[in-house]
């Protein structure tokens, strides 16, 4: 079963990305990725640029509406995602708790929707 770990950062955690290589929080992130790969559960994942670089598009009544910035105006913003192959949601929550992002922002765990994929909605 595949799960997405969606990582939400506070502005402070986004800022930490600029810190140098010795920053303990970044070190924890590197180690976390390694542990995921070594445990054989990692499928895919990536980090997103800071929310200010986002652009949100909507089509309403035939008109394009384009907005600077992220979709939702909240303090914690989507910062990246990790797809994991795991036997159960319990295991996914365990990995979410180990995620360095969980101790500052939040990590949402959601199963991928295989049915949607099969019907061609995605992928």
């Amino acid at each position: 079963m595949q799960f997405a770990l969606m990582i939400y950062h506070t502005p402070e955690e986004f800022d930490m990305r600029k810190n140098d290589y010795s920053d303990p929080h970044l070190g924890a992130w590197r180690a976390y990725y390694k542990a995921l790969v070594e445990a054989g559960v990692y499928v895919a994942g990536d980090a997103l640029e800071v929310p200010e670089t986002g652009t949100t598009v909507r089509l309403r009544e035939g008109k394009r509406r384009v907005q600077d910035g992220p979709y939702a105006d909240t303090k914690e913003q989507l910062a990246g995602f990790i797809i994991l192959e795991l036997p159960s949601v319990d295991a996914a929550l365990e990995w979410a708790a180990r995620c360095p992002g969980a101790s500052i922002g939040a990590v949402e765990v959601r199963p991928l929707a295989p049915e949607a994929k099969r019907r061609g909605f995605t992928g």
Partner: protein
Amino acid sequence: MNGIHEEDTQRAVERVARESYGRLVAYLSANTHDVAAAEDALSEALLKALRVWPQEGPPQNPEAWLLTVARHSIIDLIRHQHVVSESEPTLLSLTKESTEMNLSTEFPDERLKLLFVCAHPAIDPAMHTPLMLQTVLGLDAARIAGAFLISPKTMGQRLVRAKIKIRDGGIRFEIPDQRELSTRLEAVLEAIYAAFGIGWDDMAGIDQRGRDLAEEAIWLARVLLQLIPNEPEVRGLLALMLYCESRRAARRGPDRDYIPLSEQDTQQWSKPLIAEAEQHLAVAFQCGRPGRFQLEAAIQSVHTERRQSGRTDWTAIVAFYQQLIRISPTLGRLTGYAAAVSETSGPEAGVAVLDGLESESVSSYQPYWAVRAHLLQRLGKTSEALEAYDRAIGLAEDPAVKRFLLRKRG
């Protein structure tokens, strides 16, 4: 109703709830086997107390007051159900008790039966601890869910299912006979220790809920000891938890940094808790029936001696681990053994023990990687040590432990 009164009542209700919750649930469900109904009835009674006590003043015997109110609502509930005929005997016995029992008389303590029901072999072992926390201590599903890292909705559903099984599955509210007692007791002790372990992992008050859970587990073990004073493993468990608890203050530095056992300031260890632990362990060992909790407590006792001697008797610890491994070679014990062996016979010997463990089982076991990293570093195997440190850091949950390991990794 004035403010002060309200506050007093609130406190009185909380006190009774804290001290009597399990006793009341156990007593109310012992006949009906319906734990959920007993809990509902008790919460209703507690709500009524909040309404009525400020006006009439708290009753002389608050526990008996709650029991009477709760029992009436259970009787009402049974009357309203369609299965009146089937439940007639229960109804009769409840009504009879209700009229016969004087409010001031003591009612029997059925908590031991309830503890055995919660850890019954027919109940999913993963639910033993959550059931105990809810039925005996009155913790709500959301809080238990947080401790067990399960969604509150799922935990709620699992608790409901477990209680239905207790009600309908023919699980008897009884104390197992001598023949079965030790196996059944082991499950109860395991469940209490699991609650402590969760509280312990949350560490040093980062999460107030975690800290409380460790305290609740100790409280449960004390209750169990009162009810069943002659089983040495009960004392062993209590001693084990008290030894660990005695070091709580020493486990964190001023900036909340993680401090491992070997570097803790022994002056910060709690003397009264250690004294109590020592006493329980001594009484337990006098029975001449050592078990896993007594042995684990013995290991902690050896560590505690450092407070006076300034050194740790690793040979004794190795011997206790060997006994534990003979009982059952769990991953935790083998890892602890490897660490102890490295102190008596050098890091190579410790690594050799770790190498003997099955790689699949250790792949997500954090303590294994932490010990392995430390030993490889001592052996000067830098690149292997770095790999192991990364695994240990990546598998750790506590940010302070991550920081600690990152510093050691260098």
